[in-house]
């Protein structure tokens, strides 16, 4: 059931007894709980850790040599050379590299988990082109072994998105990549929700193939516009209700619609758009669409043709979350260039992000960034490690609206940190130790810190 009145009895009574919404004593105000599935995440108890003599990529464009980092009370507490501090644990990171925890803005872990069996296909509510009412967090299986594999590759934060069959696929959720028996135990505290939208071939193929709208790209656009028009009215109805109530009147609350709640969250600036959109002309139209209905068009995911409109994306403050090299599986993925991320990144005020959309490449986002950096440099760019790391740390955090919390080596930020055995842009590089909020969550050389999902326990 998608529509229901949370206060149906109260409203029915008031209609009978009072007849008119403007008279009599005020009924209890109807409010919408915006966080009904709150995070219960607690960092593992963390003593202080001092990492010494590392090559540090800050995530914000700097490379620091022979640098020490103190992780204390879950935060990055000090950064500098030859820190004279005592810590519970000191790690000599001579010859090793340190980066912020890696962030993947596009994952389906838990929603399309492994084993990928029919009982687990929970990633896409392909029943209507607009399913803004579904929340992918309600599909997340925390025992997906992929979370552990991703952590071993340095992933500390990831956004789980619903699939791309629908114009509006539902809400995303941002997770801390910690083992937990519940989704709430992984949920990134105070991260904004996202709304998955999809352009192009997928919605029109899935629904057009069934003989229902959208059948064409113009059908896609009509579908978005109708939904935003409806959401605008819904928003106004609630604003009128709130204003009337505040004025001491006794109005009837609008009918609650959880699909429109999500769209209204976007119009209110509380929910961020994450838009599966490959083509230049479509991204340009999605930007205009957002202006037509007064919201921000957010992050374009996959954006195979982002390089064709790099200026426009930067001008409008869009992040572009891209693969290094996937192509050719659809017409909209035909015009790939492996320098896409670098071309987008080269524009002032840009926000280029490397994403995985894969349970495999999420394990090596540093390698994905390395491919781009080197290919681009061969084509005349002069990118360095300290530039490329931004694509999978700070810029990714920005796309998710959590750049004030994680995504860079900066004092006061959450101590989400990876120690690599060497330059993380080498094909031979591996994460050695991973910290989330200062707590060690992975150690390549200590089984005590190698989590195993319930599913895999006793299987090998």
């Amino acid at each position, binding site marked *: 059931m998608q529509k229901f009145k949370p206060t149906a009895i109260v409203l029915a009574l008031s209609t009978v007894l009072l007849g008119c919404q403007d008279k009599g004593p005020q009924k209890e105000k109807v409010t919408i709980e915006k966080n009904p599935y709150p995070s219960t995440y607690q960092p593992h108890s963390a003593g202080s850790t001092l990492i010494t003599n590392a090559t540090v990529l800050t995530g914000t464009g700097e490379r620091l040599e022979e640098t020490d980092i103190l992780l204390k009370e879950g935060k990055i507490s000090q950064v500098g050379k030859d820190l004279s501090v005592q810590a519970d644990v000191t790690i000599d990171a001579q010859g090793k590299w340190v980066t912020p925890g890696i962030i993947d803005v596009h994952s389906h872990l838990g929603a399309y988990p*492994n*084993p*990928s*069996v029919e009982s687990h296909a929970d990633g896409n509510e392909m029943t209507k082109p607009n399913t803004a009412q579904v929340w992918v967090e309600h599909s997340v299986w925390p025992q997906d*072994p*992929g979370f552990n*594999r991703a952590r071993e590759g340095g992933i500390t934060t990831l956004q789980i998105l619903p699939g791309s069959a629908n114009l509006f696929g539902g809400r995303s959720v941002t997770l801390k990549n910690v083992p937990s028996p519940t989704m709430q135990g992984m949920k990134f505290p105070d991260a904004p929700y996202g709304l998955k939208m999809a352009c192009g*071939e997928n919605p029109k193929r899935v629904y057009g193939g069934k003989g229902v709208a959208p059948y064409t790209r113009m059908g896609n656009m009509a579908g978005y516009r109708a939904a935003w028009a409806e959401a605008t009215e819904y928003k106004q109805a609630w604003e009128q209700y709130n204003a009337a109530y505040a004025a001491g009147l006794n109005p009837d609350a609008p009918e609650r619609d959880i699909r429109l709640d999500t769209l209204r969250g976007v119009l209110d600036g509380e929910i961020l758009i994450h838009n599966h959109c490959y083509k230049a002309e479509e991204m340009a139209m999605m930007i205009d669409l957002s202006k037509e209905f007064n919201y921000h068009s957010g992050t374009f995911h996959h954006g195979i043709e982002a*390089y*064709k409109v*790099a200026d426009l994306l930067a001008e409008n403050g869009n992040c572009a979350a891209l693969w290094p*090299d*996937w*192509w*050719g*599986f*659809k*017409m909209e993925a*035909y*015009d*790939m*260039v*492996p*320098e896409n991320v670098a*071309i987008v990144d080269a524009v002032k005020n840009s926000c280029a992000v490397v994403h995985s959309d*894969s*349970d*495999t*490449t999420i*394990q*090596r986002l540093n*390698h994905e960034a*390395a*491919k781009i*950096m*080197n290919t681009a440099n*061969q*084509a*005349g760019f002069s990118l360095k490690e300290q530039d490329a790391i931004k694509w999978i740390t700070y810029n990714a955090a920005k796309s998710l609206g959590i750049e004030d919390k994680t995504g860079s080596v900066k004092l006061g930020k959450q101590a989400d940190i990876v120690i690599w055995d060497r330059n993380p*842009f*080498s*094909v*031979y*590089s*591996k994460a050695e130790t991973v910290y989330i909020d200062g707590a060690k969550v992975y150690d390549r050389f200590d089984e005590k810190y190698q989590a195993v999902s319930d*599913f*895999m326990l006793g*299987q*090998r």
Partner: protein
Amino acid sequence: MNNFKVSLLTGALLASSAAFAQITAITNAKVHTLTDAGTLEGATVVIENGTITAINPANVAADVTIDAKGRVLTPGFIGSMNQLGLVEVSAVAGSRDAGDDKADVDFDASPAFNPRSSLIPYGRKGGITQNLVVPHGGKSIFEGLAFVVDLSGEFNSVLKTRTALVVDMDASGSGSRAMKYKTLTEKLEGQQQKLSEKDKKDDKKATKKPTQEELVLTAVLKGDMPVVVEVERASDILEVLKVKAQFGLNLVLWGVNDAVLVKEHIAKANVPVVISAVSNLPTSFSSLHADLSNAGELERAGVKVLLSGFAFEGAHNLYQLRFDAGIAVAHGMSYDGALKAVSSNIAEVFGLDGGKIASGQRADLVLWSADPFEYSTTLDKLWINGEEVSTKSRHDKLRERYTTDSDMPRAYTK
């Protein structure tokens, strides 16, 4: 005879042309021969008429000399288990020729191969010079016949057809995998029966002309044609090894995420395996032992390991094979083993000319700025059949169009 060169005539014509008369010497290279000669420093490799004619000769009389300045020379790498040239855009039905509902034992997709596919120059960027193209069949467990192409992009680039029979013995989407064994063994027994009857008759004139399917099955039973069996679970691997023993198959196992459980059996049966270096998730109950360490572990058990691209790499991103090899090394495979796994092992198992740097070998070569597995390494030169071939593709044209300043709209930048 099932293995033959389709381009013998064309090859002979080309070989006599002036362009092939020239002798090229690559000097001062670090040469990974992938033969018993090992890795040679400061070595010279001579190419003539599409063939490597000498390594470190006493005297070099070359028309063209390329000083490698210590850079790395490897054989061209060999892709496998993908649909290169049979698929341009996966979602465009008219550009897909790798499968057919009616495909069966005798499905040879090589006439559908398109050497002008945009995937081919993109594959060259990864130093790929040859590829074993594998159809993906239809409803039958028999997916069809693999064939070999080079990545020259020329119209004569199909080098060898009917290279291997491909059989899918992995878990069924419906019904039981047991039925697949029934189908496979009945097919082979049926052909065995026919052959023994034919031997008895001893009247060749009365014998009907064999069908394409019979020709394939005969080659398989004689061990002339390798049989690639796609399988994952350890118990299934053992069952397939039994089938091999029963019929004397020239077996190649493909997929085998659980192979480490039965590695000794595979090694003892002398069966090579084709795996992905980056497969490490329990995608099904048949793949619970997928792990990044598998390539190294199988190698140490004495199994001949061939690396092929992972699912999403497929034909479009064939170029990534060298990086996969690097990941295999990072997780325990030997460096030489990884090099062989993307070149000479594939050539040996499927009977290709190439994959090694030795006198008499086809001159498919790549000159790298440094370690070919590393992201920062560039491909400096690539030769296919002795001809230097560009690695430019339409991707480069697109990049250049959108990164070159012009007063005109981009559409005029070509």
